[in-house]
């Protein structure tokens, strides 16, 4: 096909495409579009770091300004991926350091980051503006000190949900006194004290600071000092929200009232209810409120929420109870996202009056609700049907009934029809997590109706391989599937082998997938890595028909990886299968 437009025109058109899916689609139109696109893409997203390798990245894209990389599978968040599995970012940093001297943004999720890696980042990318480490581990405050000392252009340092080895409280002092560009700092994940004076000085000299999320150790008494130094804050996360006596109350309330642009509040560990009214002056501005560390009872929670008329996102513990959620339903008419975490997930009967009714109330009252993550102890088909009919606009529905295989508590039947109703009525559903007693029937419904489903999480569900088969053969848009403790085995997996190449990844743990099937799949599908993750001793003497502990299957253009620990095997590939991409 002859080029109808000059490259410059194409590039200009492409510059309006910001989503990576659009960019990927455009690059598949023709070879010349592929070539033009690759020269002008400057934001790259890699959803699975092992689907490609650093060399593939730098060969294809030449002038990258922003990179986003994801490592471990999602179930790593729940400790299902053993330590040492992989996902180390260092090789990426080395290669990108070699080629992308102008790199400005690095976003990593579930990757292992070392101090050496952070030092390489700090010294190799002089233009770095954004460093976001989400659910990462492997580094210490020494690495952070290197970043603080060397990244002269840093605007954003966000350590959300990271596990950091906290060797020193002084790393913040490594930001030079001349450094004034900070816009966002999130250190909520740190459990040790940071030097408050260094923090205060940093905040004082950062006029552009919009986001400040403190960690638990910053005492309430110090909050007003910080807020007075940064009244321009848009997002603020407190530390422990408690103090002896009420002396700090009035200065805190005054400090909050000075924050005219504040839209998001979080933190609130160890809440003393008497201090909650200090935030009332900003409640009507809030679009996001995270009280999920606030172990305080429903009346206090309801009171503060009732002031938040513009709330779009609410994260809270089940202490809110059904009554509190009714308050949400009447007060928060703009609510789009609701998250309710369990206060006591390991106790069988915790006696918290939060039931399915709370969610039904919110689904009735909040017409813009589209995203739900809800932990509870009982559910019924009728409630699920109501929710689906109230809110057909739901795009993300994640329900966790704490006791595995819980039936409809009213009828004692499986929850198949309830979830079936969700997928049938919520036609734009892209993410679903299920729980409770579920037979193969629910998977039949999902395969039939959930045509836009992108990510599905299943646990303790199904009866036979048919369940898995319905999903793999029916869900046209499925890209991520994660399964644990389900009786799915070799048949459905092998019969749908080609589907797996259309997906980013499949995780199956404590199921019935055998070593033999994994080997066969790996042999037949050269573009899949079939990783068996199994910590048992003497793996070589286990017969092929025995189920693996865990299997993680993902498409890749790079063949097998070579940084695997001894409990990970990539099945069905010889060394000769490694692709030589040149």
């Amino acid at each position, binding site marked *: 096909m002859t080029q109808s437009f000059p490259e410059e025109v194409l590039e200009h058109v492409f510059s309006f495409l910001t989503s990576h899916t659009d960019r990927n689609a455009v690059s598949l139109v023709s070879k010349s579009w592929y070539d033009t696109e690759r020269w002008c893409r400057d934001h790259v997203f890699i959803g699975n770091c092992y689907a490609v390798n650093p060399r593939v990245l730098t060969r294809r894209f030449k002038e990258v300004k922003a990179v986003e990389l994801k490592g471990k599978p999602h179930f790593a968040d729940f400790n299902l991926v053993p330590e040492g599995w992989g996902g180390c970012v260092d090789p990426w940093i080395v290669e990108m350091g070699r080629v992308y001297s102008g790199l400005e943004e690095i976003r990593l999720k579930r990757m292992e980051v070392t101090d050496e890696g952070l030092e390489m980042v700090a010294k190799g990318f002089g233009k770095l503006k954004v460093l976001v480490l989400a659910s990462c581990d492997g580094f210490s405050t020494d690495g952070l000190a290197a970043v603080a000392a060397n990244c002269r252009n840093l605007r954003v340092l966000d350590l959300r949900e990271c596990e950091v080895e906290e060797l020193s409280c002084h790393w913040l002092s490594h930001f030079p006194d001349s450094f004034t560009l900070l816009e966002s700092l999130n250190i909520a994940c740190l459990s040790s004290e940071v030097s408050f004076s260094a923090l205060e000085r940093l905040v004082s000299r950062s006029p552009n600071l919009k986001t400040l999320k403190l960690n638990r150790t910053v005492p309430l008494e110090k909050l007003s000092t910080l807020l007075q130094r940064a009244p321009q804050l848009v997002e603020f996360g407190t530390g422990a929200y408690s103090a002896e006596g009420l002396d700090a109350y009035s200065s805190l309330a005054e400090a909050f009232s000075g924050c005219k642009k504040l839209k998001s509040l979080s933190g609130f560990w160890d809440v003393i209810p008497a201090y909650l009214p200090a935030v009332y002056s900003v409640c009507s501005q809030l679009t996001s409120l995270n009280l999920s560390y606030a172990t305080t009872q429903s009346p206090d929670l309801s009171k503060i929420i009732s002031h938040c008329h513009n709330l779009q996102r609410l994260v809270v513990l089940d202490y809110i109870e059904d009554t509190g959620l009714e308050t949400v339903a009447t007060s928060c008419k703009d609510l789009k996202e609701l998250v309710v975490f369990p206060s006591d997930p390991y106790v069988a009967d915790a006696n918290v009056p939060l039931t399915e009714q709370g969610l039904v109330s919110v689904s009735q009252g909040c017409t813009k609700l589209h995203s739900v993550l809800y932990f509870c102890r009982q559910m019924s088909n009728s409630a699920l049907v109501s929710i689906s009919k109230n809110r057909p606009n739901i795009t993300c529905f994640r329900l966790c009934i704490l006791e595995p295989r819980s039936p409809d508590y009213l009828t004692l039947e499986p929850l198949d029809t309830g979830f079936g109703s969700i997928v049938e009525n919520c036609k734009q559903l892209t993410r679903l997590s299920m729980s409770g007693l579920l037979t193969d029937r629910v998977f039949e419904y999902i395969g039939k109706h959930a045509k836009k489903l992108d990510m599905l999480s299943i646990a303790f569900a199904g009866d036979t391989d048919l369940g898995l088969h319905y999903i793999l053969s029916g869900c046209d848009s499925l890209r991520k599937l994660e399964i644990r403790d389900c009786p799915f085995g070799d048949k459905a997996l092998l019969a749908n082998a080609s589907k797996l190449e259309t997906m980013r990844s499949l995780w199956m743990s404590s199921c*019935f997938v055998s070593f033999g099937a994994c080997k066969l799949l790996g042999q037949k599908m050269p573009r899949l890595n079939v990783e068996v993750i199994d910590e048992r*001793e003497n793996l070589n003497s286990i017969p092929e028909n025995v189920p693996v502990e865990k299997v993680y299957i993902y498409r890749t253009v790079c063949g097998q990886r070579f940084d695997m620990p001894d409990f990970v095997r990539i099945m069905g590939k010889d060394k000769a299968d490694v692709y030589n991409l040149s």
Partner: protein
Amino acid sequence: MELELTLSLSSSSCFSQFDLNNYSHGNVEAKDNVYECLNMQPLKKRKYCVNGANDVESTSFIFMNPKFSGQETSLVRWPPVNKSRKKLCVGGTKPKSMFVKVHMEGDGIARKKINLNLHRSYRTLVHTLANMFGKCKEDVKLTYQDKEGDWLLAGDVPWGSFMEAVKRLKLLKNTC
């Protein structure tokens, strides 16, 4: 070498058992699926006798079938809450420590203790224990005493079961 896009894999007869056309909804129990199709044998629990004999007894049924309600493997790492949330549990704000005594064969009466809650796998545990006694992990074998008083070789049962059963640890010199 292409896989046909049908329900059954092409070519050799050993694949015929994967033909899902042989299934009809509701007629197949999980039990059939497991035993007949996969030709499963129950795994055996290896018993390690302190005196040195190495008896293999088929004493228990370690098998990941969720229909075998309740157990060991099923409720490990459930419900799906992440680490920061787990730490917040009403049961205590600090992660509970689980110290057990560990003895190294040949070290006289010296006893050390280890906090098992800091570990999530046999690998890190053996590594740490070996270091504790100044040995290489290849030179030691880890055994444990369970609730019934039996000494067992560590590594055969899933980590969660081990954590529930373990009372004491002993490192033996690896004579292989």
